[in-house]
Each structure stands twice: as structure tokens, then as C-alpha cells.
């Protein structure tokens, strides 16, 4: 089954640029980070020399990883961040689904306008909008709480859940709903047995778009969070800006990337197994 030459070229033309993008802006930086995580911090920040020098901390080391695995506090922050990201994703899903469904089932003319409304908040900087939440939550005595962090996270990331859900739901064939009804399914059954399973790809991509950035977020916990709401992102920021400890920060960033990849991989596997046979 030889693929015609022209088709192969087209394939590469389409797949090439994104592949190059990923190589240049994901793989390469990750490798730099991996290398940095194996080095000693420089006296003034940055990295200690790579060439080993006697009597000085230089060359390659595993001490950053030893620090990470030798102490439970780091894992604890990772676990806490995972919980916050999971809660945020779930809340976004519950809030976004009905809205996405509503938009998808609206007359075609109104859909674009409604989608525009969904992305309208992007017109202002997200920090400004988070500050607005500080003003709203402050007098309610909810500022500086875990609840405030999740509210802020959900608010900022909601559109990232709505849009993929909407693009998926919009494509559903309405005759399937008629068929389900004709076969005696009530509204709930139609949703649960027809619409929802068909929308799973949208659910997964929306969840990924919310879960991953939330996991690395540091600004929202810093502004809205209380004394116990530090996340992985804050720990990484502190390593780079507060302590000038690049190797440690790189190690943490790499662990975060690995955690995200592991979770995404598991989700993809789960999604493939759960998907109806096509």
C-alpha cells in the first residue's frame, strides 16, 4: 500500500510546521531545562560552571532530584495543585456544558454572537479581572481562601472549556435525537445515552485545556489565595525569582511537565478505551 508521493509531500507540508514549532518551543526548552536541572546553582543566580572545577560545586549532579524525592513537602504541593486543578476542571465542565449545549442548539444566526460573548472577557487582561474578583470577594470575607482561588481559576479558564465543547456539540446530527425519542427515550436518557457519549472528545480536550494551565498557575493563588494556597507554579516562581536557584526551579518545572504528560497519557488511554467503536 504505497502512498503516492504527492500525498506524502502534502502530509509533511501540513504536519511539518506544527512539528517544527513543537520541536523548537517545547522539546528544545525541555531539554535545556533537563540539563539545567542536573547542574549546581551559580553563586549569584544562573548556573554553576558545567566544567568540573576542584573545590567548587560545578559539573553535573543529581542533588536537585535527591532534594525532591528526599522530602515529602514538594510532593505535597504537587498533590495539592492536582486537587485544585481537578476541582477547577470539574467545576468548569459542570458550568460550561449547559451553556455550550445552549449555544449549539440555538439558531445558527445567534451562535456566532453568543460565542463572541464567551470570548469577550479576553479583551481585558486577566490580571485586571482577577483584581476585580478581589474587590468582589473582599467584603464577603471570602478573599484569601481556597474557595477564592478556585473561583478565580474557574472564571479565567471557563471559555477554554466552553469553546471545545461547543465545537463538538454543534456537529451532532439532530436526527439522532429524533431517533432516540422515537425509540422511547426521555430527555434525560437522550442526553445521557446519545449526546454525552458523543461529546466525550470535546469534554476531554476542554478538560486538558483547563487542567494543564491551572496546574502551573501562580498569579491567581498569589492574589486570591490565603496562607495555605501555594501551588507548584508559586514554588517554581519562587525558585527562579526569589532564590535565584535555577537548577532547582528547572527540576520542579520538569517534574510538572512529566506529571502533566503522565496524566494526559492516562487520559488519552482511558478515552481510547472508553470511545465507542468506530
Amino acid at each position, binding site marked *: 500500500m504505497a502512498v503516492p508521493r504527492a500525498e506524502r509531500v502534502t502530509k509533511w507540508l501540513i504536519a511539518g510546521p506544527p512539528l517544527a514549532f513543537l520541536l523548537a518551543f517545547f522539546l528544545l526548552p525541555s531539554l535545556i531545562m533537563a540539563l539545567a536541572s542536573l547542574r549546581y*546553582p*551559580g*553563586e*549569584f*543566580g*544562573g548556573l554553576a560552571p558545567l566544567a568540573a572545577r576542584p573545590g567548587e560545586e560545578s559539573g553535573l549532579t543529581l542533588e536537585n532530584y535527591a*532534594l525532591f524525592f528526599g*522530602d515529602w*513537602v*514538594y510532593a*505535597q*504541593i504537587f498533590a*495539592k495543585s492536582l486537587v485544585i486543578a481537578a476541582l477547577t476542571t470539574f467545576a468548569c465542565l459542570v458550568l460550561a456544558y449547559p451553556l455550550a449545549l445552549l449555544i449549539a442548539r440555538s439558531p445558527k444566526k445567534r451562535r456566532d454572537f453568543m460565542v463572541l460573548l464567551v470570548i469577550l472577557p479576553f479583551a481585558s487582561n486577566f490580571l485586571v479581572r482577577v483584581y476585580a474578583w*478581589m474587590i468582589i470577594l*473582599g*467584603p464577603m*470575607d471570602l*478573599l*484569601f481562601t481556597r474557595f477564592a482561588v478556585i473561583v478565580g481559576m474557574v472564571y479565567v479558564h471557563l471559555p477554554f472549556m466552553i469553546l471545545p465543547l461547543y465545537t463538538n456539540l454543534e456537529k451532532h446530527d439532530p436526527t439522532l435525537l429524533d431517533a432516540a425519542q422515537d425509540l422511547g427515550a426521555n430527555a434525560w436518557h437522550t442526553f445521557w445515552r446519545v449526546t454525552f457519549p458523543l461529546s466525550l472528545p470535546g469534554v476531554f480536550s476542554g478538560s486538558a485545556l483547563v487542567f494543564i494551565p491551572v496546574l502551573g498557575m501562580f498569579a491567581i493563588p*498569589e*492574589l486570591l*489565595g*490565603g*496562607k*495555605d494556597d*501555594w501551588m507548584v507554579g*508559586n*514554588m517554581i516562581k*519562587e*525558585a*527562579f*525569582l*526569589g*532564590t*535565584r*536557584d535555577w537548577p*532547582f526551579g528547572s527540576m520542579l518545572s520538569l517534574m510538572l511537565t512529566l506529571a502533566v504528560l503522565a496524566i494526559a497519557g492516562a487520559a488519552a488511554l482511558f478515552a481510547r478505551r472508553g470511545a465507542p467503536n468506530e
Partner: protein
Amino acid sequence: MDALRALRGLAFAALLAGGGAQAQQDRLHVYNWNNYITEDTAERFEQTCRCRLVQDYYADNEEMLAKLAAGASGYDILVPTGDAVATLIRQGALRPLDRARLPNLANLKPEFLKLWFDPANRYSVPYAYSVTLLGYNEQKMRELGIPTDTWAAIFEPKYLERLRGKVTVLDSQRELMAAALIYLGFAAYDTDAAHWKQARELILRAKPYWAAFNAASYIKELTVGNIWLAHGYSNDMHTARQDALKAGRKFTIGYSTPKEGAVFAVDNLVMHKSGRRPDLAYRFMNFLLEPESSAALSNAIGAGSPNAAAMRLIRPEIAENRAIFPGPEQLAKMQQLHELTRAERRLLNRMWIEIKVR
């Protein structure tokens, strides 16, 4: 449609012309704390030197050092605090100063010269200072009977019980540790690991009562009344007090230096070696050492001034405020932070993470 295109062309031409004109103009690059040169002072300097003052901002010394370490360059002048000056000197990143080109050095108070980080003022001249202290809602403190002249207010559970969820402390490893160390009777710059552990225990004992570690919004939280007691900088507390007065709040914001002593941060003007215009940098430094420039900053943001000649130009309510201009006996108890080695930075960061998690 044509009009639109013509307009766009015009805008583009203007952009080019503007860019060309600016390239010819002299520029002085300053990397500074936010809002640390008044607009008026900046304009006056631009007029006298016929050059443009270009400022970038940082929110703390570590951030500035981190960005310089990451390769930021081209800055003629930096405004680091003492411990960061020491780091920059050891890095060999600063240009030695020619004192003959800074005649206004004569305006400075002698107690602000020859400080530990640069004993001969070879690289730095003091610009302004702040004290890390306690700011509070005066009415609430009186109602609840909380003493405001001691670090005990943010560390002792017997007081914190009445303030649960109404206290913020600085989100800064160095500052919070220093406050705890001073309260325990150690020096702010102490690096003994056993003393650090005691400080960590003190912090962890008080933490359940605090609302947040906050460096970004305590001014606002104090002025709107969400927070009653905050650990922060004297100039920020000055701003909070002014804002609360202006907004006509039913309460007032006060601030005072704890009797145990406090961290005293002297910010200095230094010349970075990567700067391209030392000539303009000298003129600017000398300009900032003029009494008018220094007084303008104190009047605008409540910063302390090391400039003796500026004192008569500073509004009395600021010049006589002991939290901004400490008296001699208070000054004796002020302590400056010292630089940490990378091993000490790591140890402190490890403790900090534990403080944040537990």
C-alpha cells in the same frame, strides 16, 4: 476605504519619523522600583539634560538580580537595596564612582554614608530608605487592645486570637524571617541554622491566625478595612494612610516601628557596567541628590530621605513621623539585611516551602 488606508500610511510614517527622532535623542536607562522617581522630577531632569529617561521596573531586589543574571543589560542606573549592592559589587557588575563628578554628595547625612555593604561609597550613594514595620487599623487595634509597638502583635497567639484572618505578613522569605529573628532577639541578618529553625517554629505557630502572605495588595486591603494589621513597608503604609483619609473611611491607618527593632532598607544609586551612558548617569545621580528631588520623593510616597539638605523641604507631618524618619535611639536598633550564600538561600527556601505547606 481609501481614507482608512491613507490614515494607516500616515500613522506608519509618523511611527518611522518618531523612531528616527528618538534614536537621535540621548537616552538614560534606569532599572528602578516602581514609582520611585516622581514624575515631576523625571520631567525636570529630561528638560535640563535634553535627554529621555527610560525606566524599567522591578518589585524586589531578588527579581532585579534574577533578571540581570538572566542577561538583562543596557541599564545605566540601578536602585538596589544594600544587600543587593553587596552582591553586585562581588559580581564585579558595578562601575566605580568618580566622587568629583557628584558634588551633591555633600548634601547627604553622614550616618547614611559608609554603610556595611560599601564602606567607602566607591560604588553606591544612598537614595532613599524604608523601614519594614507594622501598619494597622487604629480603631480596631484600640478596641481589641492590641499593642502596636511590638512584633508580638503578629507572632503571639494571645493577640492573634482576636485578629484571626485579619492579619497579613509579607510574602518575602527574607523579610518575614527577619521579623521573626528580631522578635526572638537575634539579628535580622543572622544565618545560624538553629536560629532560623526557631524563627520557623515561631512563624508556624502564628500562621494559622494569618489571612495571607501578601506583598501585592495589603495597601488596598488595609484601606478598605478587610485587613486590620499588616507587616509591610513604611512607604506603603504611608500610602495606605493617605488613601484611607482621602476615601473618608471611618477608621484611620497608623504605622509604627516595633520596639524590638526592624529591617531598615537603604536603596542606593549605582551604575551598572552594561550602561552605555555613564556621562548622563553622573548627571542624573547628582540631580537626584539635589534637595528638591529627594524631598519630592519623600513628600510623594513617604520614603525616608538620607538627604540632610532636603529636610527643610519635606512636609512636617512626614519629616516628623518617627516611623519614616526614625530618631537616633530607634536608628540604633535598625538592622539591614545581608546577602546570603547559595547554600543559605537553598536552606531558607526549603524552610519557606515548609512554612507555606504546613
